[in-house]
């Protein structure tokens, strides 16, 4: 296990180096001038040149990249071109919101997804199965933008049960909890559908396995057959899906954050790309990459608990 963790950390460092080079390179060659975005349409060429010089944008690519890397290894990820705020601070303000939203929507997704998937598998080809798979298909197909807008219209504007947007209150307060409900449902629906489909197919496969038949033949109680012999063994692909989804959610969810006016990492990243705010783009992408690797590592570790046959040398 320790070997696995050490190896993954080593891989992460190499990955971050590669990603930083790719992101820096692609932002460098991408059309769009950061100076124009700072100066605005009214800035003259002299104004723009002054801004470029000030930000070091006139230096050759390798000089700029080397400078970035040199500072980054010392923990300095630079300052936003637009706001002059440190990248670490800009991310630190937004990440808690993204984390809150990711956890809440994963709770929604896992609870609904597992329950629906189980019902579907255990009542295979029944009306319950049909209903559940239909909802799963709908969940995957409905765009977040539409679902979010619809939920706002129904629950916030018409019924006035929940606030339209924002995520400013602490989640453990009543107001904070209410702020989380609509975005978590919006974001969790797609993942729930994926988890439901995966749980269903994985359960159907395991349910037909020899050891399940043997367990039944031995007279093991049906609940024990399902919860101990079947579900546990069916969980490996489901955990993979949950891990991947959680990784994506931690990277920020641009559309949901936008619709519900949530100040998260996804919005930060998309705004930074639009404004050609290179240090912010770089910082956010590195954060997302790190989180993805960490989540995958956790998933790998969880595998060993779910299925003791899995061992890492």
């Amino acid at each position, binding site marked *: 296990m320790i070997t696995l963790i050490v190896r993954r950390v080593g891989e992460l460092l190499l990955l971050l180096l590669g990603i930083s080079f790719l992101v820096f390179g692609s932002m460098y060659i*991408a*059309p*769009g*001038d950061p100076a*124009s*975005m*700072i*100066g*605005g*349409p*009214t*800035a*003259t*060429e*002299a*104004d*723009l040149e*002054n*801004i470029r*010089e*000030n930000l070091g944008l006139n230096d050759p690519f390798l000089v700029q990249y080397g400078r970035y890397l040199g500072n980054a290894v010392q923990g300095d990820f630079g300052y936003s071109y*637009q*706001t*002059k*705020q440190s990248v670490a*601070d*800009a991310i630190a*303000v937004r990440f808690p919101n993204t984390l809150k939203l990711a956890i809440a929507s994963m709770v929604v997704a896992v*609870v609904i997804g597992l*329950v*629906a998937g*189980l019902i579907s598998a*255990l*009542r295979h080809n029944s009306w319950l199965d049909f209903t559940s798979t239909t909802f799963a298909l709908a969940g995957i197909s409905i765009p977040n933008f539409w679902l979010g*807008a619809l939920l*706002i219209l129904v*629950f*916030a*504007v018409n*019924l*006035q*049960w*929940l*606030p*339209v*947007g*924002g995520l*400013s209150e602490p989640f453990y307060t*009543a*107001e904070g909890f*209410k702020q989380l*409900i609509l975005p978590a449902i919006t974001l969790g629906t797609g993942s729930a559908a994926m988890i439901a489909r995966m749980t269903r197919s994985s359960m159907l496969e395991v349910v037909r396995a020899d050891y399940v038949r043997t367990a039944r033949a031995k007279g093991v109680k049906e609940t024990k057959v399902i919860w101990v012999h079947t579900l546990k063994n069916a969980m490996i692909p489901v955990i993979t899906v949950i891990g991947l989804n959680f990784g994506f959610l931690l990277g920020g969810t641009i559309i949901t954050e*936008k*619709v519900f*006016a949530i*100040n998260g990492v996804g919005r*930060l990243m998309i*705004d930074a790309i*639009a404004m*050609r705010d290179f240090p912010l783009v770089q910082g956010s992408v590195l954060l997302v990459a790190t989180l993805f690797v960490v989540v995958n590592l956790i998933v790998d570790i969880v595998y060993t608990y779910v299925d003791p046959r899995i061992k890492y040398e």
Partner: protein
Amino acid sequence: MKKVWVLFVALIAAVVLAACGGESSSAPSQTNEGGTTEAGGGEIEEFVYASTSDVAGLSPILTNDSVSANVQEHVYETLFERDTDTGELIPSLAESYENPDELTWIFKIREDVVFHDGTPLNAESVKYTFDKLRDPATAAPRASLLEPVDEITVEDEFTVKITTKYPYGPFLASLAHSNAAIVSPTADQAQDLMSNPVGSGPFKFVSYTPGDQVVLEAFEDYRDGAPDIKKLVFKVVPEISTAISMLQTGEVDFIDNLPSEQIARIESIQNVDIEKKDGTSVFYLAFNQSRPENQDENFRKAVAAAVDRDTFVGKLNGLGLRSDSVLGPMVFGYNESKNAAGQAYDPELAKQLVEENGYGDRTISLLTANRDNFILMAEIAQAQLTEAGFNVKIETMEWATFLDTARAGQFDITFLSWANLTQDGSEMFYPNLHTDNIGSSNRAQYSNAEFDELVDASRTSVDQEERLNYLDQANGLLLEQNDVVVMYHGVVTGAMNSEYTNLILEPNGKWTLKDVTRK
């Protein structure tokens, strides 16, 4: 199995109950959030404005975007400002001024103004701010506002003398620009004004959460008396339809820049008043004049004759003003006689010119940014130009790429716009169409010696009547040769909770909330 089913039902019930449970408690709290709490008298305890973008920063010296300017204009003040109705330049922090000669401006500063940190505002503050704005080391995005300035000297505590390198007509308009606002020198030396601003305006800074909100409070020692709004929140709500929902539920009290497609929805909301005013912004079709085929006067005439601007303006739900004039009615230099001075819509003439000159044989690239009404303009123009026999291909780009591509002149025709914050015609013509700015802000790559001369004259004359005349002639020249085809002039809009009144909308799209009070 039954247990699983029961669990599922229980879960759904729990979600529904949680939602239902909120009904009694959430409604009043939303009302509070929206700032509609009674504070007695005309006072408003909290007022929330929703913006679709975050501020870039809170220092007028280091920013140049309209969202930042909206906040800054409530915190800082400028030497001059525009009268919101007449557009006339009137003193604000300046009490009076004189022009002993064409190169010298002497400003008398008001003596009763203090910054929020207690520092008195005087001639030194003005000199400090302007020197910092024009210092190349500052790299101020709008350093060009003071480019003509040669020297700034403090004559006495409340008198400052500014000499310019050449006579500069729009100087007072530049001083009314939000980026020329006066900052507290004490504060600027002690802290970062980008995140902790100190000005002399009606509201003082409380807090800034990047990406989320800026909070201001009434400045009780404001020279004209403290505003009724005690706490003013600028909240970031990136999606306009969400902002409208928040306006409807009372979570937000004011939004601006209403999209034409949302007007009907906002009008249907009972507790909201919409305000509109003719604006200074102009949206126009421009030709890339660095390409010889676009220098053909008949080609431009055919394009202008093919595009039906009246139909387009009709699709804006009242948020566009039709006039051929490049300088709109709210801009200094406008002359009513230019309203119909451009090529009129004449599809038959367009077809005839296309046929005679074989304009349909080449593909015209129509470059457009993927924002606001630009795509709509491009699609309508493409349809109408195709009808006339042109062969038009639309190239859509996101804003930053669009700016670069247009600056490099990689297009045949495009749609451009200009907000014109200073409301002065020279400030529209010089950056956008003067030869000096080809390769930067003159994206049409337009170069015309006669036009340049007229614009230079409008900039260097300090006689305002003369300036009007030069600008009118320059405007006429553009229309005569169809160098610019104006699609529409903008209308500024705002929607405010109907409990309040006295919103001041300015033609350049800015607004002020300092006089807002309960009805």
